[in-house]
């Protein structure tokens, strides 16, 4: 039964994390370099962090990077750890975590749908949630929903006066 500090020491011992932080009780976040993340994932899996709850992605258009966050949970330590890493925005390619957790395939498809991140090794990245979507991935910050909606749907004209602006 490790507490948050022992976990961070464990991380320091085996990897060179860029940043470690105890957000609050039972919630730790660690940032890794791109190359180290997958090893960290398998390392943690063997240390009782069996549950990959989700993979989320944050779009930093200014720095031109995507931030991929892997949220793990251990039933022994009862700690949520989120492993973060930054990847370049334009090629937007990262290795898949499918071999470690098969469920990762769906999270990766979801991220591919909404952010356009391509995961090497995950061969079926077709649409999971969207249906024949032609535009750029909608969750990206540079996707202007209002413009999209304006030209896709006309607005109801309440006797001559349009709804928006």
């Amino acid at each position, binding site marked *: 039964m490790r507490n948050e500090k022992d976990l961070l020491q464990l991380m320091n011992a085996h990897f060179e994390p860029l940043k470690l932080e105890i957000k609050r009780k039972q919630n730790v976040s660690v940032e890794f370099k791109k190359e180290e993340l997958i090893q960290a994932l398998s390392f943690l899996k063997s240390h009782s962090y069996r549950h990959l709850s989700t993979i989320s992605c944050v779009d930093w258009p200014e720095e031109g990077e995507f931030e991929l966050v892997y949220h793990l949970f251990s039933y022994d330590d009862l700690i949520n750890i989120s492993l973060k890493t930054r990847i370049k925005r334009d090629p937007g390619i990262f290795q898949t975590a499918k071999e470690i957790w098969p469920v990762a395939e769906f999270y990766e498809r979801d991220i591919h749908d909404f952010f356009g991140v391509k995961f090497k090794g995950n061969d079926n990245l077709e649409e999971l949630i969207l*249906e024949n979507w032609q535009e750029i991935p*909608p969750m990206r910050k540079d996707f202007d929903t209002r413009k999209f*909606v304006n030209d*896709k*749907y006309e*607005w*109801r004209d309440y006797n001559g006066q349009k*709804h928006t602006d």
Partner: protein
Amino acid sequence: MNNNFVKGSWQEILDWAQNKSINMLHYCTGCGAIELPPTMTSRYDMSRFGIGPAATPRQADLLLVTGYLSTKTLRRLIYTYEQMQAPKFVVGFGSCTINGGMYWDSYNTIKQLDKYLPVEMYIAGCMPRPEAILDGLLKLKKMIADGEADGYQRYQDNLEYYHQNQEAVLGEVQRTQ
């Protein structure tokens, strides 16, 4: 349809009967669905007006679309609508069906229901309370009695218009053979 221009007395009797007993298929798409149980149960008791829930579109006359409609749900809604039979009416529920409501600028919701399906009436409100629902439905019953509720006619007459709008949003839509 052979009965739309014969406005004989028989049609009036049918309209009268139709308005007295409506089977409602509440297609719980959005958050409006939670408003219906109170209208059906003891407090407001919708069944005293002859309106009761129907299990399948085959038995239903009224399609109640209760809330925002994502594009994928619209496809299923259209199939259900086509499975319903002739004197059928659609009632939009809540502001999301009128003009997109709170999700007006979201990329994946439908903004106006009546572009895709012939809507008899909208009941405004970001989820109208049971009184509003009952009031709306009573108004619908009056419309049916007077024969004005001919949504299914409008759908048949300008089928092309509706199909274009649907294909615009959904890509190709499977039609029943």
